[in-house]
């Protein structure tokens, strides 16, 4: 397994997966319809092909997290539908059900602190009764080894690892279940620039080697443009689609593309849209405070 990590340059992205096509149609989410009546999402639609890497950008409170919670099966929607590979995933009246086909990597990190790295990584395999303990352990070790020789930390507890390492383990814990969609909710938010860049490279390598539908939620536009095939900019509350930018920068990508003319052009296009929404959110915030 060792040495795999050095031969990525020049490789193209692995072929698109067969499943993981997402269709979000006219989704509205209203919290507390009889009371405060907060419209978090309003008529939001987007379509993703299997193997698309989509980043969703918007100011705080734009409904990014609401959308993610509905996709993950943590929350209901008020109207509209979401389809996964042609089947209804969420519609009004359906019970939200999380599942291993849509695994979330959480903003604050949600490795179980009382389980070792290996116990965390094999958790999904064992709970879904996909395989026996010994087999799950072997597979867990294989995934850890493949991801930069992490086998050496298999018996560590999460608190003994750096935050970057915790994130890598959490992503492995998700990927080992072979989900159709990987939902990343601002996973690198609390990191410094150096670690963030390292994690970006790491995530791009994972995407390259084992392509999946990825929905990446962030408020960092540069991060979104650097990682994704498409960047969706959302408006401030009620959240709806403001701008859908196709990022046709070549893969594999590294930091140098951030200096390319194509990247800068895309960024300029996006920056004004994001800034406009951020300003609106800020002004409304002030009014709400007053």
């Amino acid at each position: 397994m060792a040495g795999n990590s050095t031969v990525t340059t020049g490789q193209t992205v692995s072929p698109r997966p067969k499943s993981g096509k997402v269709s979000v149609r006219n989704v509205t989410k209203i919290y507390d319809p009889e009371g405060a009546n907060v419209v978090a999402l309003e008529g939001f639609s987007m379509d993703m092909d299997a193997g698309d890497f989509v980043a969703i950008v918007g100011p705080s409170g734009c409904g990014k997290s609401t959308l993610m919670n509905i996709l993950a099966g943590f929350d209901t929607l008020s109207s509209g539908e979401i389809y996964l590979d042609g089947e209804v995933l969420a519609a009004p009246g359906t019970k939200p059900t999380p599942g291993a086909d849509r695994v979330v990597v959480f903003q604050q990190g949600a490795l179980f602190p009382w389980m070792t790295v290996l116990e965390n990584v094999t958790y999904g395999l064992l709970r879904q009764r996909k395989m026996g303990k010994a087999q799950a352990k072997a597979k867990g070790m294989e995934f850890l080894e493949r991801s930069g020789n992490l086998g050496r930390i298999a018996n560590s507890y999460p608190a003994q690892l750096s935050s970057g390492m915790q994130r890598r383990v959490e992503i492995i814990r998700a990927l080992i279940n072979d989900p159709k969609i990987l939902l990343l909710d601002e996973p690198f938010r609390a990191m410094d620039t150096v670690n963030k860049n390292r994690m970006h490279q790491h995530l791009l390598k994972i995407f390259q080697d084992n392509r999946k539908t990825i929905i990446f939620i962030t408020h960092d536009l540069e991060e979104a443009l650097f990682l994704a095939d498409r960047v969706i900019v959302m408006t401030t509350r009620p959240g709806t689609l403001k701008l859908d930018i196709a990022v046709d920068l070549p893969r594999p990508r590294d930091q140098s593309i951030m200096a390319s003319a194509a990247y800068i052009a895309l960024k300029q296009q996006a920056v004004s849209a994001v800034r406009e929404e951020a300003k609106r959110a800020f002004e409304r915030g002030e009014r709400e405070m007053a």
Partner: protein
Amino acid sequence: MTDSVTHSGKPAPKQFSFLSNKFVLNVVGFMGFLFLWYASVQWLPIAAFRRLPDPVEVIIEWTSPDPYYGVSIFTANYYTHIFYSTYRVLASFFLAIILGVPLGIFMGWKVSVHNYAYALLGLLRPIPPLAWVPIAILLFPGVELAVIFVTFLVAFFATTMNTYVGVKAIPEDYFRAAACFGATEADILRDVVIPGAMPSIFTGLQIAMGAAWFSLAAGEMIAAQYGLGFVIWEAYNLIQYTTIVIGMATLGLAGFLSSAIVRWIGNRLMAWHEQKLGMEA
């Protein structure tokens, strides 16, 4: 993990490190207390203090093979009293675990259980253990059960409330992550709720152990024929003031030791938690 700071064999970079040594300071504090006690009994011109035994008298009586008032570490009845008190505390403590931990867990985890129980517990909890003694004597046949009930109550509230708080403090994302990976309700109880609340449960058990000893003494003073609380009250009635202090000191030691044992078991069970603390320290 083991204590990484060793006090012996370490080169002493600071000249006054002796005075910052934790053990030394503990001993200094303890000796200071004994001195103040001795001084106030021997030298204060206050009659009330003159009636009390000084620490030297107590230690002599406590370690005497032939104690003046009949209770010392060489007499069998001393251990009979310790046995009765320990037995009552342990019975109450385990009853508190058996009833309090599940109740706390389900109160923290399930809103309906919370709604049934929380307000009721909030009303019952402030009632001091002594106030329960008459009801306990009326309710239970015999003194033994009454004393255990009174001791149990305080331990039960401490266990329940800390377990409840522990479950409440588990981040929502852990539940969501478990659900993502296909965990059933039973899995979530075993894999998230119980381990997540464990540090707080053990805090509760330590408090419960301490609380059990002090409400035990109250119960035994009023309603028992054996036990350390009984020793204290009996000695008061018989004007055997030295024995009062022996009973008190024994209660203190028993409470301290039993809390230390609970803490030790907790640390053994939660390797992940201690390591976390070790890293933050």
